[in-house]
């Protein structure tokens, strides 16, 4: 057999093997992002559950209309990251409104239900932060792969684009800033 042909065949086999390997790495990274995205869904669900509970508790003391306490937040399957960010932001605003309202109702603040839910909020927020960090870590690794050569070339051939991060709420960023000032 012609040695040149052998070299060409070997090079083609190596290239195809390399392409498959990189392609699989990208696919695995995508799967990890999807898994982490589902994790955010679970955490948002938990947050929403606690919020509705909280609204019920507040209503029994403050007789506020539910709509005044939190805007309609709809969670649905297949939401984009932007929509999830928006839902999360709205939930954050609702929690702030509830906290502000509770300041005017000492008996509400002192109630066992309210305090139990406060702890539940702290825990679901922590779970949401964990989901956000896990998701963003995966997105970061994936996005880095998309810009690094030669992965970027294969990603381009597959039509892959950068993924959006799940951002921290503005209030949380402010909290961090405050902490740093101490």
């Amino acid at each position, binding site marked *: 057999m012609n040695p040149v042909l052998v070299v060409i065949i070997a090079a083609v086999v190596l290239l195809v093997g390399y392409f498959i390997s990189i392609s699989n790495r990208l696919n695995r990274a995508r799967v990890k992002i999807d898994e*982490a995205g589902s*994790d955010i*869904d*679970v955490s948002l*669900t*938990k947050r*929403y*559950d*606690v919020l*509705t*509970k909280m609204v019920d508790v507040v209503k029994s003391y403050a007789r506020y209309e539910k709509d005044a306490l939190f805007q309609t*937040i*709809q*969670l*649905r*399957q297949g939401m984009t990251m932007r929509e999830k960010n928006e839902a999360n932001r709205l939930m954050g605003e609702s929690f702030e409104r509830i906290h502000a309202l509770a300041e005017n109702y000492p008996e509400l603040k002192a109630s066992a239900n309210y305090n*139990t*839910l406060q*702890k*539940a909020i*702290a*825990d*679901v927020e*922590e*779970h949401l*932060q*964990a*989901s956000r*960090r*896990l998701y*963003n*870590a995966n997105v*970061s*690794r994936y996005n880095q792969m998309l810009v690094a050569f030669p992965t970027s070339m294969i990603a381009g051939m597959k039509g892959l684009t950068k993924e959006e991060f799940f951002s921290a709420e503005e209030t949380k960023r402010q909290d961090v800033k405050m902490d740093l000032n101490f």
Partner: protein
Amino acid sequence: MDELNELRIAARNRLLCCIGGVVALGIAAVAATRQPFLLFFFLVPGIIVSALLMKKPRQRYRAAFKQAYVRRALQSVFTDLYYDPERGISYDTIAATRMMNMGDRFRSEDYISGRYKDIPFEQSDVHIEEERQSTDSEGHTTTEYVTIFRGRWMIFDFNKTFKANVQIAQKGFPNAKRKRFFGKKEELFKPVEMESEVFNKQFRVFAQNEHDAFYIITPSFMERVQSLAAHNKGKLLFCFVGNRLHIAIHDNKDSFEPGSIFKRPDEEKLTQKLRVEIGVITQFIDELSLDNNLFKQSQQSPAEIGGGSPWIN
């Protein structure tokens, strides 16, 4: 202190008598027979007999030190104290974490349980050895026991509720063989990369579930773990199992032991030494803020906290 010193002197005198006796007998035998190798015949059994004779006075000295000084020092820091110098955390408790190579020989002592800042804890000194066999060129096989872990094992109630087990191992912790680490359930643990490159360089994280790893190991927690690693000479292992935190410090140290029998005990130095050794326990509760129960809510599941699923299709 005087009583302790008397026990120390008794132990020291017994040791000196033993050494003197063995050497005198050896020299007498060599002088009588003019065979220098006879010295070794006396030396080996002499050392064994001396060790047997030394056991009791040394034990008495150790026990007196622990019962009087160590117990008093512990009582001044911890509440609900239980201290037993002779027993330790059991083999089964550590093996049940499935995060430690249990070796072939296990020993533990200086069991302490109590509360600090109302956080329950247990601790003991642990020594784990592994049997290693080697064969020389002539085919002779020798067996020796090599220390694979020696230091403290501590167990604290953790202030977060988690479902999956997580491990943080400082690089260089002597049990890096994952097959031995996790036993048959090795496949359930996966390496997790945290977002901090500095942390990843210093520690390895394994978890049954990535979410729980990120839930437990927050950025602030990572900084605290790094700070603890910087303040401890030994290598650290953190095992989060069953809502409890197991911490192992491999520093080749045996804590809460009296000093040499040849040195008169100095009360001030002893107090300082005990304070440092007790501080090893309290630093983890303080640094990791284990008394912060902000997240330790009632054991309600998400379904119990809320109603049905809010998701719409």
